[in-house]
């Protein structure tokens, strides 16, 4: 069983070990850490990052990257907030949020498929562009009180497990199935592993890229709705920073930056590690000013110990 679990996580024993040691230490220092309530807390805290990271995993496997997801999250959430404010229609709000996130996701894919520049630099530009739009239409002011379904996602729980956690797990499972059992998922690995060989195998590389970036957009849309539900508000900058943390969580989990390998379960480990660390630091009473130092150091160590080939 343990072996099967390890195999599932791609033999990331070091990371599993780090997680266990971290959990035990914190548990000894502060017994509150090892309660079910705290575990659920951590899951809730990482759910949005987890959803964004799952999308990032698809792209990293295919040798792509989207740095605009943070800005796109903000913009989608803000557009949904505006619609609710003006028209009081939740379905319309969610629809428009997805149109935004999937539309710009696919647009990024289209730009990446031209092969004129590395997606890093393309989406870096898009990051600024989309952030700019979000700030311009909001004029900097947040929207509070989203109401309706947002309340349900944000507050309700099932079997004491908060709904955002369910959403995160559902996204994980769906993307895992996609990557394992769908030709497009297989093509993601193939393109990330060797784009030229994929082309020679008859795969329409450009088309597949657009679809994968659009799927990443779907994840961003879900994350946007979940995050504004949790906060019960929409801010024009609420997503900033997610792009880098998502890449960090994915790579820490063991999906290499250069594509061809990886899985969402590894990403789950990476996300949990980040969540556990900040939770432990909180419970151990480490000052907020120092937390980033520790968090950064652990991220670097985790990646070094992976020894990604």
């Amino acid at each position, binding site marked *: 069983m343990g072996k099967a679990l390890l195999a599932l996580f791609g033999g990331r024993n070091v990371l599993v070990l780090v997680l266990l040691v971290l959990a035990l230490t914190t548990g000894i220092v502060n017994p509150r850490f090892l309660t079910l309530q705290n575990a659920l807390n951590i899951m809730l805290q990482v759910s949005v990052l987890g959803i964004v990271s799952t999308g990032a995993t698809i792209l990293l496997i295919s040798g792509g990257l989207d740095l605009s997801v943070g800005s796109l999250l903000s913009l989608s959430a803000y557009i949904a907030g505006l619609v609710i404010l003006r028209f009081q229609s939740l379905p319309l709000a969610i629809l428009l949020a997805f149109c935004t996130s999937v539309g710009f996701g696919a647009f990024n894919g289209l730009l990446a498929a031209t092969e004129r520049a590395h997606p890093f630099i393309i989406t870096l530009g898009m990051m600024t562009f989309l952030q700019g739009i979000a700030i311009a239409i909001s004029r900097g002011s947040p929207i509070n009180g989203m109401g309706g379904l947002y309340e349900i996602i944000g507050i309700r729980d099932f079997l004491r497990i908060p709904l955002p956690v369910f959403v995160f797990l559902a996204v994980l499972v769906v993307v895992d199935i996609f990557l394992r059992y*769908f030709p497009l998922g297989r093509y993601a690995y*193939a393109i990330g*592993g060797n784009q030229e*060989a994929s082309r*020679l195998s*008859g795969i*329409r590389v450009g088309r597949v890229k657009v679809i994968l970036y659009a799927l990443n957009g779907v994840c961003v849309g879900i994350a946007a709705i979940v995050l504004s539900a949790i906060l019960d508000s929409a801010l024009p900058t609420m997503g900033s920073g997610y792009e880098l943390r998502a890449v960090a969580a994915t790579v820490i989990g063991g999906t290499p930056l250069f*594509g061809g390998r990886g899985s969402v379960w590894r990403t789950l480990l990476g996300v949990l590690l980040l969540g556990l660390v900040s939770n432990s630091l909180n419970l151990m009473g480490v000052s907020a000013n120092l937390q980033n130092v520790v968090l950064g150091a652990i991220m670097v160590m985790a990646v070094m110990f992976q020894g990604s080939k």
Partner: protein
Amino acid sequence: MNLVPEQEVLLAVNEVSKSFPGILALDSVSLVLYAGEVHALIGANGAGKSTLVKIIAGALQPDRGNIVVGRKTFRALTPLLARKVGIAAVYQEQQLVPDLTVAENIFLGKEPKTALGRVDYRRMLAETGELIQAYGLSIQPSDTVGELPLAQRQEVAILKALKEQAKVLLLDEPTAALTGPQITFMFRLIEQLRKQGIGILYISHHIDEILSIAQRITVLRNGKNVGTFLTQDVTKEMLIEKMVGRRIEGTSSFSRKPSGDVVLEVQHLSVDGIENVSFLLREREILGLSGAAGSGCREILRSIAGLLPPRKGQIKLFGKPFHPRGTTDAIQQGILFMPEDMRKEGLVLPLPFPRNITLAKLQKVTSRGVIVPAREIQAVQPYIASLRIVAPSLWAETRVLSGGNQRKVLLAKALFTDARIWLLEDPTQGVDVETRQEIHRLLIEARNGGRSILLFSSDLEELLALSDRIMVMHKGTLVKEVDNPAVVTAQELLSMTLGG
């Protein structure tokens, strides 16, 4: 004039051996380069020329043997060390920085400084100008290297080597990209350098060229030095015989008279690199393509595979016009291209190897658009068994397989994909003798099973053994057709290929 200069030995390679997984690339090769000689290095593809040159340039380290430069003996060189002791490999064009000017490239890392410590551009340009003039070249010191044609970039590389006081120049096919007058000019430059006492190791396929420029010629065959000759003692025919060797006993030809229907018809095809080429490919036929680098063989395969759009002419598939807009179209029509450089273009190395076999036709293992893993494993197993692919497990990444097994994966992919027309480029490049024979048997079986194979190989023995007909290409045109390869020797084929 053509006597061996009885001068100092610049470079001596002593009993150098080098092996790669599965092949012995160099087997105890020795070679001496004198000051003031052009020493040609010839041999068929895979004879070990480039391995030897890389060892001398420090890009590869030998397993055994040593290299003596001047009075110093080295177990192995590194690129930096090689340059320090005066060895310059001009074929490594990447040593030039395309965005910098000719002068900046020549002085790179050794820029003259003014009294204030700033780069003295005026002096740099002046000295470069003198150098250019001394050799009668037509480039300007202020030209940007990246904007120069290949011929002149090569000249810059040579000047840079001279500036660095190189004593030994390694030239790998320096005339490959040059036209008539440029070649004459390059030869004049080489002769001038030789007279200055520089030793030049000159690698080329063009025997006529070699006979006119080299003083001595070393022939490599299957990783061995089969002889170093004075140019005046040899003829073209003798050299070709040395390159090919005697025909190996027991390699019989599988060729036979093709009689199937025409599946592919190429009419007056012109693309970049080939001019007005027409031919037919029949069912159950292996059509061999023979030609040296730049002959256009590779372009023919690539344009049929949908990678190079034709400029003129057309391709007919099963009697109907075929305009592939990409490899997707070609594969749908049953045409699969298997490139020589399989690691770069052929295989997805991080994927488990069974997934490379199924990649081009995943539909065969899906049900309602979803991959059924059990079906996939079941579907690849017969191919793994019949091709005897050896791998640690079915989950093994393609990367960890040996070169020979990777080749077999590529062929298994062709079989799995149900491709009717196979476009093959050097299918046994870099594999051991046993695997080579297995692959040959497989290709014959595929032909007998109804496939049509367009086979480009730089291994002439292979072409002669497998092909039912052979087309010989030279500089982009079809120069000869061999209808009965069984009666042709490798020697004869080589001289056709060399445009004799």
